[in-house]
């Protein structure tokens, strides 16, 4: 679906990561995990087109998919000055404004907003302000807003970190339905390995140090020398999941040890 080809990202002289070469496959849930400061959120920004890579490129399998990427930031990014309905409608309003600044939002866009609010079970919150919503309600609103623009790629930064345990499970189930129900491929950033293993079909592990790329599309934790490496998960197989969790934790620990030993003189 997208191929990030030998991508590097830098803020001025500071390189966040380099040599990253990963593919996001349509219909699979991807989770990016890794230590704080390794560039997970920056990677989402890059995929959303909000940041430009210093080197390398983002290749979309179907070029027009580039315009169908939606991003849900960590704090959901809802605008306090718009109602739930207004927030959901915003993406459509922007799309309409692209065709002409003074064009009116068509009735079909409003109908679509209604449908999404109903599907995500937040229709009764339509006229509420985001400041009055619970975490789960905000999350649903943010998802509805993202889905309104028919995204093929849905990027979510720490989508469950601020939620209570029971709502978290509810939202995780909703996330897992996204590829089949809405045709959106989710890429989430999380620091919670168990959560990543529960919801994701594929993990993208990030290391702190920039390094040569290596991808291992296998279940053995990939190469430990890699800047990023991909791990296939089997969320439905419980025994495999426990085994996987240990492997992923081991891989991250090894990567961390390697980084810190490299840092020593």
């Amino acid at each position, binding site marked *: 679906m997208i191929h990030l080809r030998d991508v590097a990202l830098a803020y001025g002289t500071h390189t966040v990561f380099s040599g990253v070469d990963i593919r996001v496959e349509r219909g699979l849930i991807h989770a990016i995990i890794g230590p704080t400061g390794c560039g997970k959120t920056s990677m989402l920004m890059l995929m959303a087109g909000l940041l430009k890579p210093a080197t390398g490129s983002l290749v979309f399998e179907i070029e027009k998919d580039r315009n169908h990427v939606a991003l849900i930031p960590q704090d959901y*990014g809802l605008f306090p000055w718009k109602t739930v309905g207004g927030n959901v409608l915003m993406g459509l309003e*922007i799309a309409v404004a692209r065709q002409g600044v003074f064009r009116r939002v068509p009735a079909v866009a409003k109908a679509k907003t209604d449908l999404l609010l109903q599907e995500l079970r937040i229709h009764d919150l339509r006229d*509420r302000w985001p400041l009055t919503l619970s975490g789960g309600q905000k999350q649903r609103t943010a998802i509805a807003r993202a889905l309104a623009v028919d995204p093929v790629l849905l990027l979510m930064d720490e989508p469950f970190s601020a939620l209570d345990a029971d709502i978290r499970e509810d939202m995780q189930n909703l996330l897992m339905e996204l590829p089949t129900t809405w045709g959106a491929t989710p890429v989430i950033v999380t620091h919670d390995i168990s959560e990543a293993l529960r919801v994701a079909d594929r993990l993208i592990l990030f290391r702190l140090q920039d390094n040569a790329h290596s991808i291992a599309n296998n279940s053995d934790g990939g190469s430990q020398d890699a800047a990023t490496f991909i791990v296939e998960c089997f969320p439905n197989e419980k025994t495999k999941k426990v085994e996987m969790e240990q492997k992923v934790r081991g891989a991250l620990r090894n990567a961390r040890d390697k980084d810190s030993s490299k840092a020593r003189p």
Partner: protein
Amino acid sequence: MTSGKPLDGALFIPRFLLRTLLLAGVVLVFYQLLRLTAGPRLFPALPLVARRFSTLVLNGQLPYHILVSARRVFAGLFLSLLVAIPVAVAMSRFPKADKILSPLLYLVYPIPKVTFLPVLMLVLGLGDASKISMIFLIIVFQVIVSLRDALRALDRRAFQAVRAFGGGKLDVARHVVIPATMPALLSALRISGGTAVAVLFIAESFATEDGMGFFIMDAWSRVSYADLHCGVLALSLFGLGLFGLIDLAEWWLCPWQKPMH
């Protein structure tokens, strides 16, 4: 249910009127106390003042002077917004503009603008121009400072949210900048609006033949205390109307702030 705009909307005006009536009651009691202490000559009986007030309203004198003052206030307000908004945007967007304009702003902002009145009258004459410029000077700096700070405080992530949907600068302005800075703008107008009316009174008391300032000072010189109190009442009603308008604008333009009240 903490929101519910229709409910708030239906109760907005009755609540406003109720609060005003309560306050008017307090003022009337205070007036009566003054009448008892300072004597009935300076504070004529309330029914007399009320009758005089209705006469002045019906013969068009008070409405005329209020409209003249209102024209000056709104012209000054409009001009200040016309200048302050682009200046504040430039200062928040371009560090160079901020560097050049900030010292000037900080130099002039703390000076009570009424001190410019003699110079303005000498340069612009005794007509409307000097009075409108006075109001302009009072409001413009307050709006520049408040708006510039509100623009600086904008969360860049809100911009990203719009840009992630493919939005451009116009979309960012429409969906983020304008609504997010509107409360600061209205608050600046509320703060400076009160000062503007007060200073307009002083400006209108020099070599003028119209406006509320003239009416009150004229009544004073004619030793017509009933007229004087009618003028004060009309001026305060004008202030009430001005603040009511700003409150109404806030209710209409910033309805999300209601749950926080």
